[in-house]
């Protein structure tokens, strides 16, 4: 009876975890759609802003000025919405990937929350801004925060990429262990066994190499923390390409070992 209850607990635990993952995946997909929609809205309002501001500069009338302020408010709102939705999608992706190193993730989450609060304040100020001066103040605020916004977002993207490779690496370690256990119990000739052993040793070597490469990429991430821009993110991507290629080869080796 006790064994049955333990089995039931484990079963429902796994079931709830699986369903939680499904829900998370669905949420992430919905957020991506929401992000794309907000980006489309921004593009439309940016076009309207360009028309309204050009008319204002040409005509210099009060009516044209009013229209330009309205268009600027709209484009500012849709622009900040794009960034807020994007951050939300990044947070969701980060939650979906269990391979992200926890202390770095915690620091980043804190920075993301700070940024979201700052942007929400900016949004609230835009909503009540009725004249050109107030709107222009918010334009300047957003421009001044450009580097901070980009830095935090690129850090999140880098951790997501690092986490994904880490997940693949962890799975390789688990699968390699499973394959080794299976091979040790499977009936086969000594020649085939030694052949399989050599293959397994090759996978072990790849595991060691990938571990070192991932550690180096994490060091690179830490070194770029002060000025994390798009080029730093590209460097992380390039740095991860090598361990990723190794993982692809190791996956192939593991599959061959079981044949």
């Amino acid at each position, binding site marked *: 009876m006790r064994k049955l209850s333990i089995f039931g607990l484990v079963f429902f635990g796994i079931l709830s975890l699986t369903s939680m993952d499904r829900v998370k995946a669905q949420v992430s997909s919905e957020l991506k759609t929401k992000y794309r929609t907000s980006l489309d809205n921004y593009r439309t309002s940016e076009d309207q802003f360009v028309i309204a501001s050009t008319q204002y500069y040409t005509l210099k009338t009060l009516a044209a000025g009013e229209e330009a302020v309205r268009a600027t408010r709209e484009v500012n709102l849709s*622009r900040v919405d794009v960034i807020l939705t994007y951050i939300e999608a990044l947070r969701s992706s980060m939650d979906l990937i269990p391979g992200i190193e926890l202390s770095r993730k915690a620091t980043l989450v804190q920075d993301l929350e700070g940024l979201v609060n700052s942007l929400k304040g900016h949004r609230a100020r835009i909503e009540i801004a009725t004249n050109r001066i107030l709107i222009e103040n918010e334009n300047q605020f957003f421009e001044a925060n450009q580097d901070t916004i980009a830095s935090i977002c690129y850090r999140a*993207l880098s951790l997501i990429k690092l986490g994904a*490779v880490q997940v693949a690496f962890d799975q390789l370690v688990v699968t390699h262990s499973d394959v080794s256990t*299976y091979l040790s119990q499977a009936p086969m000739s000594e020649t085939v066994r030694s052949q399989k052993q050599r293959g397994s040793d090759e996978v072990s070597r790849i595991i060691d190499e990938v571990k070192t490469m991932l550690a180096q990429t994490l060091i690179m991430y830490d070194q770029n923390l002060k000025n994390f821009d798009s080029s730093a993110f590209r460097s*992380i991507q390039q740095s991860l390409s090598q361990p990723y290629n190794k993982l692809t080869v190791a996956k192939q080796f593991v599959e061959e070992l079981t044949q």
Partner: protein
Amino acid sequence: MMVDPSNTDQTSFVESLDFHDDQSSQGTARTPPADKENEKLTTQRKKKTSPLIILLILLFSLFLTIMITTVVFIPRVINPQTSFTPTPQTEQNKSNLPEALTKSIKALEDSVTLADPLTNELPFPPVNFQLHLQ
């Protein structure tokens, strides 16, 4: 010059005949230069191969090249496909694997596919940070 039909001597008969060289030296029945040029042109035209024949030769050589390429390269293209086709023995081995191991291998495949660092589903938003109304 008149030829005597009663003369059966071949040597004197031949000598009595007027040849072109004699005519040209006398200048009585000379071919006009324009006719000569025309003759030359016609012989040149005959010598020149017509464009239709050139086209046919080109088409034929193209056909030959395609045939040779097909014969040389097709086996090379087909071979890898056939070599990658798993043998029934391999399929049988895969199906004999324990379920947990099959799941583990599948999880590895999925995680490696998702780990490609060069793909980015969420690129940084292309928004303009320098919007101003002055």
